[in-house]
């Protein structure tokens, strides 16, 4: 039996109010299962056409749905990530390639780029595919964006559910944003390295041999400098991540 929009939104109202009956949970389960076919189409396309292995979450958990309904004041039918999956890539360059490939496979998809405008420090690209009128969200994160997101989620679990949405103490908020900015800086440097590496490869291929002695040392020096700066920033990021934990623990104790 297909649920009507009115049934779904009334269910959303009950979820928001709390005190759920068995029948509410069964109805929610039915609604979530209705995304199964769309979810499978998206994951199959990613696996077969892009040769990537996403981890999927065919149905958002009840607690996460309820939190979202409270947080965003939206109707249940408007929740875009009932079903979704996640792809973790090495760096920004690969993230760009994967997002472009997803757009090609799902031309009607909307793309939410949270790198330029992070949400409380959360950076990632979300590609929301539309399959037969249903949304399936594909999260594409770099390893560093993912580490930040997982740490933020874990601290929210342990200390304060509001942390990942800009809540918690001022100190926690500041250190979360600071860590997120460091992630951005490291990834920007990685982009420079990638460009320099491409420049060196191009030089090897295109330049006359007599150009090499002049241009190659400069590129190699810049490459080494960029790598050194990345190492510094990554070490700093580790420190700030540990500071995040310490501030969250302190916030809970106070």
């Amino acid at each position, binding site marked *: 039996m297909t649920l009507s929009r009115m049934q779904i939104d009334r269910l959303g109202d009950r979820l928001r109010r709390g005190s*759920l009956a*068995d029948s509410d*949970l*069964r109805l929610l*389960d039915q609604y979530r*299962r209705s995304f*199964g076919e769309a979810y499978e189409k998206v*994951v199959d396309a990613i696996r077969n056409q892009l040769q990537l*292995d*996403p*981890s*999927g*979450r*065919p*149905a*958002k*958990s*009840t*607690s*996460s749905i309820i939190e979202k309904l409270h947080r965003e004041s939206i109707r249940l039918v408007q929740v875009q990530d009932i079903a979704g*999956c*996640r792809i*973790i*890539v*090495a760096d920004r360059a*690969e993230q760009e390639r994967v997002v472009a490939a997803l757009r090609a496979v799902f031309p009607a998809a909307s793309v939410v780029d949270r790198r330029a405008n992070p949400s409380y420090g959360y950076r990632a690209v979300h590609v929301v595919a539309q399959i037969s009128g249903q949304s399936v969200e594909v999260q594409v994160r770099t*390893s*560093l964006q*993912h*580490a930040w997101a*997982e*740490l933020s*989620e*874990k*601290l929210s*679990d*342990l200390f304060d*559910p509001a942390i990942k949405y800009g809540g918690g103490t001022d100190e926690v908020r500041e250190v979360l944003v600071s860590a997120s900015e460091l992630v951005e800086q490291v990834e920007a440097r990685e982009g420079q390295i990638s460009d320099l590496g491409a420049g060196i490869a191009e030089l090897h291929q295109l330049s006359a041999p007599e150009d090499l002695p002049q241009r190659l040392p400069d590129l190699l020096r810049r490459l080494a400098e960029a790598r050194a700066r990345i190492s510094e920033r*990554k070490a700093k*990021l*580790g420190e700030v*991540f*540990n500071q*995040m*934990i310490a501030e*969250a623990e302190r916030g809970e104790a106070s």
Partner: protein
Amino acid sequence: MIFLIEYDRPRGHIVQFKVFSDSERAAAQDIRLEIELNLNRSRVDHEVVLLEAMSEEAVRRTHRRYFENPRQIVESTSGGDAPP
């Protein structure tokens, strides 16, 4: 592979972890619902979620928060977290 996780958020640890084959999705969904109904009746606020991945290693990497404490998550980053 399908992974069913019952997770105690405030304590940050897994209460139940079950593994199903891809062909057992309906059974996994039924069990997920049963667990959730029982938790709701006893007013226990645990998150119950189904995840799918090619391997347990993959799901542990993409959903670290269920499996690791905050310091382990940080350590995995400094160790040069290899993407799948």
